[in-house]
């Protein structure tokens, strides 16, 4: 012991003086009150905190007179009752009012002694300054309110428990699903509130909270878990549970987050059903398409040979018996021949169409559109010469189509442009414009034009607008549409009767082009 410490406890000090020295300037406030709460003694420390001198707190001042009105109410409705009931209270938050009107937040402990002989009561209070602590508490309470408000307003169900699995918090969504009043659910074991069973067997299953508490790991529910509410309603759940660790790293509780997926499950089931039906219809459609193509192919192929025979024999007839037939007979024979020819062309087109419909791999080797056009002009040489038609184009790109398809496409469009010409000399102009991911071709003519009501229908097979006024099988544009669609493109027409038509189609760009 140093000399200074010896000085603090002089040997000659009486017990009373020593007590006063400990009591007066103690690091906490001390107050003694009587039965009616009147102040019997108050130490210097508390006087100092409150800003009073001893004389000011004499005659009949009571402890409650030093409190805020709220503190006074609390004293009368809770604190005094509690102290009388158990003769001891600890860590009670109480606000004092200083002489200057400022508020001093404190924590108080109190002990009551009763003298059974004299029926007198003494209450001894220890008062601790709690300014900073109170700030922390308010902050904590604020954080708790924020967290409770947040969890109350989210769509997920949330329940937390302590380390024994007793519910400490349950949000509105969870309480509603479980069919419990949130206030009543708190304090109950998790299993009593969240009754979980297997969807298939109805067997009770362990709450994932237990698993999380035991293993300290995050756990998901097994699929097909069903929550049975207090009223017996059932919900399919999707959830996870996670342990909560305290600052020592030990498990202090767990939280389970879940949602009702009954509706989602039903939607998924419906979606799957719809998808299955769609696939079935698609397969059926494919099958019938193939059947149809096959039929068309076989039919046209088989039609060709009797037709060839008719054609061959009518030629023989003309060659060998023209003198016997006479002018009238020869005329009829010519009509037979011309009809056979037309029918041959029709069958040819039908065959082409059918072959296009049946499964075939189309190469996407880039083909130069100019080369394709040159072939077409070659093919159509006689009609072009015959009609004095002008076919022109400006530099055309390579496209991602096979040469036959593109040639067919151009040939049909140009042949149509010439076939359905007006009185003017046919003039066909082909151009292409690059757009994102594809080429946009235009094939413009100065022909008779097409009424807007036919823009769609002309692309249907065997749809002919002009009857026998113009020659044609009625399959050309349908074929074009089929080709373009094969490559994921579109074809359409813009036209005005008497002014000509512009056929538009889009085709993929050549790979790497």
């Amino acid at each position, binding site marked *: 012991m140093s000399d200074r410490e010896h000085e603090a406890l002089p040997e000659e000090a009486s017990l009373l003086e020593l007590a006063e020295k400990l009591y007066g300037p103690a690091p906490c406030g001390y107050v003694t009150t009587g039965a009616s709460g009147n102040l019997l003694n108050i130490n210097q420390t508390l006087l100092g905190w409150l800003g009073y001198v001893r004389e000011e707190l004499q005659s009949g001042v009571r402890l409650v007179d030093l409190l805020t009105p709220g503190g006074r109410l609390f004293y009368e409705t809770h604190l005094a009752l509690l102290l*009388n009931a*158990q003769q001891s209270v600890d860590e009670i938050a109480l606000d004092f009012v200083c002489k200057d009107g400022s508020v001093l937040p404190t924590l108080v402990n109190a002990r009551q002694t009763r003298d059974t002989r004299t029926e007198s009561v003494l209450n001894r209070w220890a008062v601790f300054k709690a300014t900073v602590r109170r700030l922390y508490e308010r902050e904590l309470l604020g954080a708790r309110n924020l967290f409770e408000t947040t969890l109350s307003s989210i769509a997920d169900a949330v329940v937390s428990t302590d380390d024994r699995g007793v519910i400490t918090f349950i949000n509105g969504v969870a309480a509603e699903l479980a069919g419990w009043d949130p206030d009543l659910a708190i304090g109950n074991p998790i299993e009593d509130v969240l009754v979980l069973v297997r969807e298939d067997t109805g067997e009770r299953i362990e709450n994932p909270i237990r698993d999380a508490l035991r293993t300290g790991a995050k756990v998901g529910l097994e699929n097909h878990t069903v929550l049975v509410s207090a009223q017996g309603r059932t919900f399919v759940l999707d959830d996870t549970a996670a342990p909560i660790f305290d600052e020592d790293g030990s498990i202090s509780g767990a939280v389970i987050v879940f949602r009702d997926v009954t509706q989602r499950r039903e939607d998924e089931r419906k979606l799957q059903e719809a998808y299955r039906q769609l696939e079935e219809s698609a397969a059926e459609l494919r099958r019938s398409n193939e059947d149809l193509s096959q039929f068309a192919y076989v039919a046209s192929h088989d039609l060709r040979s009797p037709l060839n025979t008719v054609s061959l024999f009518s030629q023989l007839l003309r060659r060998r018996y023209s003198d016997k037939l006479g002018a009238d007979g020869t005329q009829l024979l010519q009509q037979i021949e011309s009809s056979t020819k037309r029918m041959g062309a029709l069958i040819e087109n039908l065959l082409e169409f059918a072959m296009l419909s049946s499964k075939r791999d189309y190469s996407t080797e880039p083909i130069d559109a100019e080369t394709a056009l040159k072939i077409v002009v070659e093919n159509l040489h006689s009609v072009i010469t015959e009609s004095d038609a002008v076919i022109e184009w400006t530099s055309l790109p390579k496209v991602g189509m096979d040469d036959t398809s593109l040639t067919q496409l151009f040939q049909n469009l140009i042949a149509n442009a010439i076939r359905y010409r007006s009185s003017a000399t046919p003039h066909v102009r082909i151009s292409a414009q690059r757009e994102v991911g594809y080429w946009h071709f235009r094939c413009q003519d100065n022909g008779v034009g097409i009424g807007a009501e036919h823009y769609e229908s002309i692309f249907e097979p065997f749809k002919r607008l002009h009857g026998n006024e113009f020659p044609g099988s009625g399959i050309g544009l349908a074929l074009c549409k089929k080709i373009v669609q094969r490559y994921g493109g579109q074809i359409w027409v813009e036209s005005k009767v008497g002014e000509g038509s512009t056929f538009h189609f889009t085709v993929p760009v050549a790979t790497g082009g």
Partner: protein
Amino acid sequence: MSLFTKHNINTYGKGDKTILFAHGYGCDQTMWRFVAPAFQDRYRVVLFDYVGAGNSDISAYSRQKYGALSAYADDVLEIIETVRGAPVIFVGHSVSGLIGVLASIKRPEAFASLVLVGPSPCYINDADYAGGFSRSDIEALLKTLDDNHLGWSKAMAPVIMKNVDRPELAQELADSFCRTDPKIAKHFARVTFLSDNRADLAKVTVPTLVMQCSQDDIAPDTVGDYVHRNTPGSKFVTLQATGHCPHLSAPAETIEVIREYLERP
């Protein structure tokens, strides 16, 4: 659910007349433990807890239902019917005094008399009326309740009670005291301290005793005087006992005054 369970109704004593003790805000029927037994020789004593307090059935509580004192008055009438005590001598402390007033207006025939201990028809100052508190004082009380963990969870509330060295009766009392659900306690505080039943006093037709404590901070002299002046034909007694709970701090005087009133009304 039986009303006996719902309100934790306890009866004892023998006599033709029934005396019903109603606890005030912040406590339960155990607060009458020094006073009620004194009447068992000559009366049938009935004690109960309001829903949300003490050992009542907490599940019967609904914030919506108990949003006004009249709901508590309905409960009192229900209790009287259940114990077949009408007409009862109703002894109500603090806010219960007013609950008794409201119940007696609804059904005067159920009451032989009203004994109001420290009643206040309105705790908030209003123009010439000095209730003792401002609205912000009441808010401060609610904040103090928060600070003392009553605003926290139910699990937390008993923590403040744990440091009791005496395991016998005191512990039991403290336990029942803190069984009051903190959220209900807060809501009851709001309903109690923000209600204004001044206009109802004039409608009382039952003989009434107003017991006023000395130095009562919750219901000051002026308030007791107001209740007396505005309750037709009421009798007024000022106790020597100080504070708001004479039944705890001065049970002998409290018993004496009540007994005298009952014998010589």
